[in-house]
């Protein structure tokens, strides 16, 4: 049983496959409800399936061991996974710098760094402006996603950042 949390609606679910009926038909269980599922096609990038007689298409975008970024029927969703497989994965992938994903403040848009409002070692509160980007003549503030101390400022004034680039770490 794996526990899934959908951030945007702040709800948790338990889910698993309970039976393989063959011919790509499965019975899955979400919380207390069983559903019929037929896989039409799948690979590492996405899946097409019929769930309770309704067609769905999902794309798997970025994924880490504990977070999935998927687009289901054109609707983007972020799902957190809490599963004991996490540890297996870490081991098998040769480990990684622990918890990096949560520390890094990433840019949500591409642009040029106009100014950086913090220095290494500064304490920031969630929502504080860390730096300002310019994209298509518009200035956009990048704000701290959590309370903490600024470490490893990656952004440089005058340089460009892509969407998803790390601005700095907040520990």
């Amino acid at each position: 049983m794996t526990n899934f949390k959908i951030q945007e609606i702040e709800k948790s679910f338990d889910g698993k496959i309970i039976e393989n009926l063959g011919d790509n038909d499965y019975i899955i269980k979400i919380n207390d409800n069983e559903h019929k599922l037929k896989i039409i096609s799948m690979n590492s990038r996405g899946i097409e399936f019929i769930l309770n007689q309704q067609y769905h298409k999902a794309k798997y975008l970025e994924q880490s061991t504990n977070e999935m970024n998927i687009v289901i029927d054109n609707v983007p969703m972020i799902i957190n996974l809490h599963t004991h497989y996490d540890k297996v994965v870490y081991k098998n992938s040769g480990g990684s710098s622990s918890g990096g994903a949560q520390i890094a403040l990433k840019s949500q848009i591409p642009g040029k760094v106009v100014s950086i409002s913090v220095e290494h070692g500064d304490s920031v509160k969630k929502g504080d402006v860390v730096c300002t980007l310019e994209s298509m003549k518009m200035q956009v503030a990048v704000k701290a996603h959590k309370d903490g101390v600024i470490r490893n400022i990656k952004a440089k004034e005058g340089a460009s950042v892509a969407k998803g680039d790390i601005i700095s770490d907040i520990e």
Partner: protein
Amino acid sequence: MIEKVLIANRGEIALRVIRTCKALGIKTVAVYSDEDTNSMHVKQATEAYHIGEAAPAKSYLNQEKILDVMLSSGADAVHPGYGFLSENDDFARLCEKNKITFIGPSADSMNLCGDKMECKAAMLKAEVPTVPGSPGLVKDAEDAAKVANDIGYPVMLKSVYGGGGRGIRIVTNDKELHDGFETVTSESIAAVGKSAIIVEKFLEKTRHIEYQMCRDHHGNSVHLFERECSIQRRNQKLIEQTPSPVVDDAKREEIGEIVVRAAEAVDYTNLGTAEFLRADNGEFYFIEINARLQVEHPISEMVSGLDFVKLQIDIANGEPLPFKQKDLKMNGYAIECRINAEDTFLDFAPSTGPVPDVTIPSGPNVRCDTYLYPGCTVSPFYDSLMAKLCTWGPTFDESRTRMLTALNDMYVEGVETSIPLYKTILNSEEYKKGELSTDFLKRYGMIDKLTEDLKQEKENKTDAALAAAIIHSEYFKSQVQNNSNNSANWKNKLD
């Protein structure tokens, strides 16, 4: 006769023009910047010429360079699209001098349309109603106060050198007017070193309604009906529709006659747009002429059955209009949504970058003009408009429902889009009832509604998302544990 057209533009409008030219057997010449080497218009045109760096000033605004290409490629006409050089009368004049047909109005007419004060004076002479205000520049605060008291507060103090919200103050009494006059003067001097102020009545809860003008070189003028473009953000249109819910046949004819007068007043030729503000009391006031083909022209094509680019080329060829006003009949209802690459929740900040995957909606009475293709890039150098999604229906509601279906079908991976916002707007009671105004988004709290709708959409997709996640995590687990990349193999091992 025009045989080879250079399209001095990029993106969807370049493609739009190329399509009609191809249908008419006219050769096309594309121009492109460094940034557009992989763009569709380069691939679709008969010939393509590189004209410079990504920055517009070094490519799509470089008149000399574009002229060089016109002369060396042997193009006999140029279509400017919208934006870039489309309303630059110097460029129109440069083409005229070099005996290249500029598909649009004459340089002189364009110059007159572009000069707000001169244009307003010409309209007053032709008895085209304009927003009440000072007949020209006001000398000082006293002069401004006199005008304000004549037309009644609230009024707007506007620097003729302003724009984009700068150099504008709304004032409600004499005291505010005196303070505001000083502020606008100093802002204007700070920005451009000079100040010239006009006074205009400030209208609340206005609609933006525009008319398609059409005039040939023989003095035949018609209008091709109206478009309502009230749903805007930062004075830029988001959703347009035709007909307007507040224009009936009698009103269409009444304002249409004014539009024909307006076109004649500035000796306009080819297609153009006369923009009006409609006050809450039903009065129409002329604001300006857009001397070009508009972004939102497809919806007028849908209800008129005409190809506007073909019409433009025919007029440029000197042909008389093939119809009279009485021959033109409006058929059905059309809506356009401008699919922009922007993040609604970051105050519409642009969102650019690679687009690995795209789904373009299709089907009867669905039209999507776009430069997108899977693997393309949305460039930060140019406009955020990626696609124009248009639908038609015999009734407004069929057109609206068809648009909602098309919006659901459309998918642009990699960038934020305005699609979710449009679904919220088209589903709102205010939109269904035609309760439109230029402050629609704020007035009816559309961004908050969007937040709720997105949450609801995710709730509705929960089971499907979890099913996809469950299958994926089992797949992932089997890959890690069995070191196997074969999903078929994995499926067999599931039990």
